[in-house]
């Protein structure tokens, strides 16, 4: 059972890894276009440079369901899965249930394609036709009909239910959910755990709900900015908490953090994992809670501080970001142990005990 879960997750992560550059590029196009006063237009005669950027970004976002479905299917069935997967994404867009539809469609058509690939025996002369014609066409027909006639309505219903749930939240539950989304979204600094809530935020964005996306963008910046703030604060308090090697790492993590890449914190967190994660997750959660309660929304899924001006309420976004950063920084200075020798080189060989018994050579 656990193995099936891991497999399903790998397929989703594969899709995300192909999707991320698309999301980032499209998101920035929309943001830059909007800042220049552009809007989404559908006629060539109305095209100005700002409009062109925004419109291209919106078109890019429209590709998302197909990317999700296509690359989930690719991960399951390899290359023959890509084409039918993209088709399922188009169905998802047609249904108006982009994200959820894309995921379900991708899994569905991927496993159908894999089944055909493994079980359909054709005469030798037709073998070349398998990946080119038979698998894509047959799997698209089967999965397509299922999508339209069997699970189409339930998917639309589920998407609407989720949308209504989020838009119907009152202030206090917004605080709670904001905290959870924020804290979970950066608990492992851009690693596999944080991809799950972030994926949900991207999905909600496709349904036109922008608040979770703002939490994602803001909270992702909190760990690196918070760590940087704690470094500054520790100098003031005369309580050194980082080795000189870690200080060098922080100097790299800070500019990365401004661009919403929290991975820069990993080398610092690794040396003192539990304390660091407690501090950063708390800060991220607070940023999330404030951002959600103040109703900050972001149409742009990526870009860090540069997209704050494009958010629905830039001042509130800034408040949320600074509050989380301050909390993380202060907590770090309070609970991290004082470094007696700041020149100590960190012994890297310390390993966490891991249970590797489930892993075997095949």
């Amino acid at each position, binding site marked *: 059972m656990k193995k099936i879960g891991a497999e399903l997750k790998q*397929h989703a992560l594969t899709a995300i890894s192909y999707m991320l550059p698309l999301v980032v590029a499209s998101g920035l196009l929309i943001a830059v276009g909007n800042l220049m006063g552009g809007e989404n237009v559908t006629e060539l005669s109305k095209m100005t440079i700002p409009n062109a950027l925004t419109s291209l970004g919106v078109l890019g976002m429209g590709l998302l369901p197909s990317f999700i479905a296509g690359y989930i299917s690719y991960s399951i069935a390899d290359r023959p899965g890509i084409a039918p997967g993209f088709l399922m994404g188009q169905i998802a867009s047609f249904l108006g249930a982009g994200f959820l539809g894309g995921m379900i469609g991708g899994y569905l058509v991927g496993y159908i394609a894999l089944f055909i690939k493994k079980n359909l025996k054709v005469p030798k002369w037709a073998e070349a036709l398998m990946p080119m014609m038979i698998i894509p066409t047959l799997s698209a027909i089967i999965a397509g009909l299922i999508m339209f006639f069997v699970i189409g309505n339930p998917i639309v219903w589920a998407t609407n239910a989720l949308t209504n749930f989020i838009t119907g939240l009152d202030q206090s539950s917004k605080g709670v959910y904001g905290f959870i989304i924020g804290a979970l979204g950066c608990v492992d600094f851009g690693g596999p755990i944080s*991809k799950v809530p972030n994926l949900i935020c991207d999905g909600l964005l496709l349904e036109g709900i922008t608040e979770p996306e703002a939490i994602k963008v803001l909270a992702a910046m909190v760990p690196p900015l918070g760590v940087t703030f704690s470094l500054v604060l520790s100098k003031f308090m005369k309580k050194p908490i980082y080795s000189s090697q870690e200080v060098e790492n922080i100097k790299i993590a800070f500019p990365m953090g401004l661009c919403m890449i929290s*991975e820069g914190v990993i080398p610092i967190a690794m040396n003192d994992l539990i304390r660091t994660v407690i501090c950063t997750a708390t800060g991220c959660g607070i940023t999330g809670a404030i951002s959600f309660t103040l109703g900050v929304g972001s149409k742009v899924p990526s870009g860090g501080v540069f997209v704050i001006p494009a958010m629905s309420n830039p001042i509130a976004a800034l408040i949320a970001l600074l509050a989380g950063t301050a909390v993380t920084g202060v907590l770090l200075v309070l609970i991290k142990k004082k470094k007696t020798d700041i020149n100590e080189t960190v012994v890297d060989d310390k*390993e966490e005990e891991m249970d590797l018994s489930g892993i075997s*050579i095949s």
Partner: protein
Amino acid sequence: MKIVAVAACTSGIAHTYIAKEKLIRAAESMGHTIKVETQGTIGIEDELTAQDVKEADIVILAVDIAITGTERFEGKPTIKVPTNVCVKAPKQLIQKIENELNK
């Protein structure tokens, strides 16, 4: 022991390369030779040659996502783990491989 490995994580910018560094450091400190191919967002780097794979005693796949070129490893002893195993416990992983291969 000759090890070849492929590392690939979801965002393809950080964990992939941390896993690579950790594996190389652990393997070399334990007296093995190792070559690690990375499949990040930038594409494939340090690609394993057919010769590398042929000579290898074990293939480590440190991957969170589907990778390209798995057919190269058909018939080779292969061990597949998430990248975070290589980030957190590379030596334990290699120790385990040693034990399994010497059985």
